[in-house]
């Protein structure tokens, strides 16, 4: 026993001594890749570029075709790897340092804050004219201020928002105001036979934010892309008013507070629900179920103003670890020119953030989405937004269950603040 112990003690002693005496190794002085950025000339043409595309069949097909077009035009091969959009930042932070990362990756804009905080994405400089092509919301969305410097961090490729889907068998005319929506709800609801005039998930900030925006609530103060995370406007007077109005949609004879996404989609597809809130990603499913009875309208106006819905923008970002950044920018620009965005929309069914491309859409449902985008507000892209979702979704649930708005909102905001602090942001 004693001998065994002395063995370990000695070995441990040696380890600790070496640990303390280990000295700084030689490393290249400068961070990789930053060296050549100042020069105007483009780096030499590489043989190939690698991009990470989302693992969705149609999107992938469109991306592969666009990549082939690029190869034809510039003679650079583009490898399209499939990595789920949700896993990309994590995989990049692991694969990047090993040199296995992509040159371009694809992320929704509300992750920009996270990506930039970790230093995974490079700022973007749009070439002349490229900027004017994009809709304002798209440009705002990819703008982000980090450490006092405001930059663009992605080439917008997809823009999306949400509105009202309705079943023309139940609702003859699209609701124009939130009051219309409530009337539809009250007149067409019969819980005993599972019929509802209007259904929405009670605890989803994403869909219910227009209520708060239109009454003067806000999530973070400051400007788009340069948020003041210490200023949270979700419990101000306007928000309380909004909460009271929001609350009036729930209860007996109205929307049940335990409604889930599955319930909404299931009943709507069965033709038992008049109207639901959803985004373009659900068009295919709804269309299969309802056929010609499906119609879409922009979000009804709230408090006399057009509803300010959340806008999400997915964009191509240039990896920090890329060794061919110049050409990565070139490829991203190519992929997001008007022609390619149009093509991507036709194949993948995701709306293009390009103004002209948006206007030229003929499909009635998609063009209604395009109209709604004009009133959209980009989702806050600061990492602090991640701390807002859960506390506020819970608050919305409490509201739907009929609790007193003011204390519920105060508590939620307090919790958001402690969460932000706990996550290490906000001094």
């Amino acid at each position, binding site marked *: 026993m004693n*001998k065994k112990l*002395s*063995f*370990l003690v*000695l*070995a*441990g002693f*040696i*380890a600790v001594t*070496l*640990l*303390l005496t*280990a*000295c*700084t*190794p030689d*490393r*290249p002085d*400068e*961070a990789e890749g*930053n060296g050549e950025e100042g020069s105007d000339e483009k780096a030499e043409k590489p043989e190939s570029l690698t991009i990470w595309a989302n693992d969705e069949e149609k999107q992938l097909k469109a991306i592969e075709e666009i990549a082939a077009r690029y190869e034809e035009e510039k003679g650079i091969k583009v490898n399209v790897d499939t990595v789920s959009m949700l896993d990309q930042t994590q995989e990049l*932070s692991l694969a*990047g*340092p090993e040199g296995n990362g992509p040159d371009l990756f694809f992320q929704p804009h509300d992750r920009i804050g*996270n990506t930039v*905080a*970790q*230093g*995974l994405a490079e700022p973007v400089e749009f070439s002349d004219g490229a900027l004017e092509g994009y809709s304002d919301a798209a440009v705002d969305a990819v703008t982000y201020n980090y450490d006092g410097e405001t930059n663009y961090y992605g080439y917008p490729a997809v823009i999306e928002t949400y509105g009202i889907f309705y079943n023309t068998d139940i609702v003859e005319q699209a609701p124009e105001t939130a009051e219309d929506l409530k009337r539809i709800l009250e007149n067409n609801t019969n*819980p005993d036979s*599972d019929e509802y005039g209007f259904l929405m998930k009670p605890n989803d900030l994403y869909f219910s934010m227009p209520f708060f925006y239109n009454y003067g609530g806000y999530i973070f103060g400051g400007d788009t892309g340069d948020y003041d995370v210490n200023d949270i406007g979700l419990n101000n007077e306007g928000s309380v008013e909004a909460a009271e109005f929001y609350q009036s949609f729930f209860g007996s004879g109205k929307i*049940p*507070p*335990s*409604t*889930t996404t*599955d*319930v909404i989609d299931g009943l709507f597809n069965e033709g038992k629900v008049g109207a639901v809130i959803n985004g373009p990603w659900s068009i295919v499913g709804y269309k299969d179920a309802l056929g010609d009875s499906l119609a879409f309208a922009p979000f009804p106006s709230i408090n006399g103003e057009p509803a300010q819905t959340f806008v999400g923008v997915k964009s191509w970002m240039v990896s*920090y*670890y890329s060794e061919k950044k110049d050409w990565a920018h070139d490829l991203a620009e190519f992929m997001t020119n008007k022609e390619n965005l149009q093509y991507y929309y036709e194949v993948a069914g995701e709306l293009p953030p390009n103004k002209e491309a948006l206007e030229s859409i003929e499909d009635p449902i998609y063009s209604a989405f395009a109209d709604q985008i004009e009133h959209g507000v980009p989702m806050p892209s600061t*990492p602090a937004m*991640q*701390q807002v*979702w*859960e*506390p506020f*979704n*819970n608050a919305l*649930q*409490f509201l739907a*269950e009929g609790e007193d708005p003011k204390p*519920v909102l105060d*508590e939620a905001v307090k*919790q958001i603040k*402690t*969460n932000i602090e*706990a*996550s*290490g*942001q906000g001094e």
Partner: protein
Amino acid sequence: MSSSVRTKLAGKHNPTLAMLLSIVFAGFGQLYNRRYLKGVIFIIIETSFLITVLPWLNYGLWGLRTLGTIPGTDHSIRLLVFGVLSLIALIILGTLYVFNVLDARKQAMKIRDGWKPLPFKETMRTVYDTAFPYLMTLPGLLLMVFVVIFPLIFSVLLAFTNYNLFNSPPRHLVDWVGFENFKNLISVDMWKDTFISVFAWTIVWTVVATTLQIGVGLFLAVMVNDPRIKFKKLIRTILILPWAVPAFVTILIFAAMFNDEFGAINRDIIIPLIGGDGLPWLSDPFYARIAIIMIQTWLGFPFVFALFTGVLQSISKDWYEAADVDGGSRLQKFRHITFPHVMFATAPLLIMQYAQNFNNFNIIYLFNEGGPPVRGQNAGGTDILISWVYKLTFDTNNYAMAAVISIIMGLLISGFAFYQFRQTRSFKEEGEI
């Protein structure tokens, strides 16, 4: 040389010198002892170590100590991984080095005392005989070091850093912060309050859900084993079925069935039979907890049932006959014969059931993601420690804090399991009983 000369020489052989020599350079002591092959092997190991591994080790250890100094160039987390690997390599090498020193001394002492080396062939045979078990377990041990010990050390070390989103590499560096995170867990209100309430529920959940699943399993096993029951095979097959359906499917179906407004349990059972509006299974923490415990019982009892059924078959009939002769009642027979037999054979497996439920992430997360929300608390009503850690890691990106709670969980589980295993006989070594 005559044998008397050899003895004379041997008497002069100096163990301290052998030891010092092998401290100076591994293998020299062995050469002095005239164990040439062994000496050469040690010399080769140390030389190759000095030439190839030393810079690598130096880099790893330096990284482990500083976690990098230049943001953007040094990647703290990679350095940490590298550092842990070099530490493991270092400990292996250190052990070899210490072994070399002690070996030189021991052998020198033997030679001094007149020990004669055996012929080469003989030596090889004894080495083979003594080393064989070690040789066989070596691959497993190495695998264990890299698959279990390495990640364990990594996550323990993580708990002493400030790794969160805003210190994430490559842009920033992670730093050592000592016990800061542990201090926060017990002093900052937000962590403290949530931790205590989640911890309390985790214990209740583990004890109640597991005991219930064992109880139900035992009850059914004893019932089905009763000689008066017909169609035993059919009944057993049916009772095993919940185990055969993938758990996640069952949980998701149950989650839909428990829905307050649209679920079958309220709609088709509670309201028609009892009336009222049904129970708030998903929106009230108390009912959500009841529901989740019932689901776990449903999922867990078939395993226990199968286990007990097997044991029950093996209890000799003689025991019961003897009890009948003594006029033992049904209950007495169960208490003094069946129960001890069953428990004796299965205790370790039952303990594993408790440990498993303590960390049963699937059911908590799939049922309603730890909900329903509780006002003024940052974990949901049914969140157990493991699902709370998940939320911390993925929602708040607070990796360090998640590591702290994981350590506490690990210690609890291993402490409990260790104590229990010591108590049961199945894990004692021969002769220890």
